[in-house]
């Protein structure tokens, strides 16, 4: 019985304890992600050079959405968070949410979003 449990533990170690998930993306997925990231970066720079967009209120939100998309794509596919254990997701998203909340809070307190 104890050996069966050890067997089960060993199998568990083999799959997850090494930190290597079952299904990492294939090479073709990595290349597609790289192309998407390049397009998003080009789009960001293009938006920066279009005065009619820069003059609108949409300029900053567009850039933030594009940056967030790049951020999420890298984290999900290159850092394999989409495929990895949920504890890793929690270890990253928890502090990330705190960090983002801190930035927003500080901007409201001292920055350009200050409440008067």
């Amino acid at each position: 019985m104890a050996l069966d449990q050890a067997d089960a533990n060993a199998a568990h170690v083999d799959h997850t304890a090494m930190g290597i998930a079952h299904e990492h993306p294939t090479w073709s997925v990595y290349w597609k992600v790289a192309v998407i990231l390049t397009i998003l970066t080009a789009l960001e720079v293009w938006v920066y050079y279009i005065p009619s967009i820069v003059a609108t209120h949409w300029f900053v939100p567009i850039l933030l959405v594009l940056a967030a998309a790049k951020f999420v794509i890298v984290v999900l596919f290159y850092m394999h968070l989409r495929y990895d254990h949920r504890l890793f997701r929690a270890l990253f998203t928890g502090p990330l949410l705190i960090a983002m909340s801190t930035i927003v809070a500080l901007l409201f307190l001292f920055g350009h979003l200050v409440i008067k």
Partner: protein
Amino acid sequence: MANPAAALEHHGHPPTTTGLDNKKVAIWAFIGSECMLFASLISTYLIYKGRSVHGPFPHLVCSPPLCDKVMPAVLDIPVTSISTFVLLVSSLAMVLALAAVENADKPKHTMGEKILGNSRLWLFMTALLGTTFLGFQAYEFTSFVHKGLTIQTNLFGSSFFTLTGFHGAHVTAGVLWLLTLLAIDFKRGLKPKDALIVDICALYWHFVDVVWVAIFTLVYLIH
């Protein structure tokens, strides 16, 4: 039916209570703490943005009396766009290096498979691209100093050099880490059992990349 001793010998370490490797848990915890560090640096930059009394300024031309003479906006978006692209490509090289190590034991028949399966090539490419990014940063810092912007000049200079300097230091550490892996690969060859150490380095490298994604937008593009 495997016995625990055999399992331990085979996998190189005992099973943990979480069933996860401690090293990988540690790197994710470290990355989480790094999120906080860069959040503090980014928020400092954003709070001080537009509050410099003296020029030069990031996006605006500076004229007397705010500057001794007319000074152009210091940020060079085309150059930084190229360095951003370089860092994104380095992330691609990094995942290809990891995939090559994971599949090191699989037979490779075609030239494409041999190139994609060459971990030394991709580790070297990642380190080279990281070094190229650092070269761009050195060029940028030097040109800023020539334009009259140092870390002591104004609030923009202080917060900008601190933020991007910290990021550059992280990239430098990543390049050294990559070169260490490359040396190991040349010495004894990285096998699938070594995939975890490459994965941990890759996680750090991609994190450095996503931090730059945020910096590029918040510091360089938004004005």
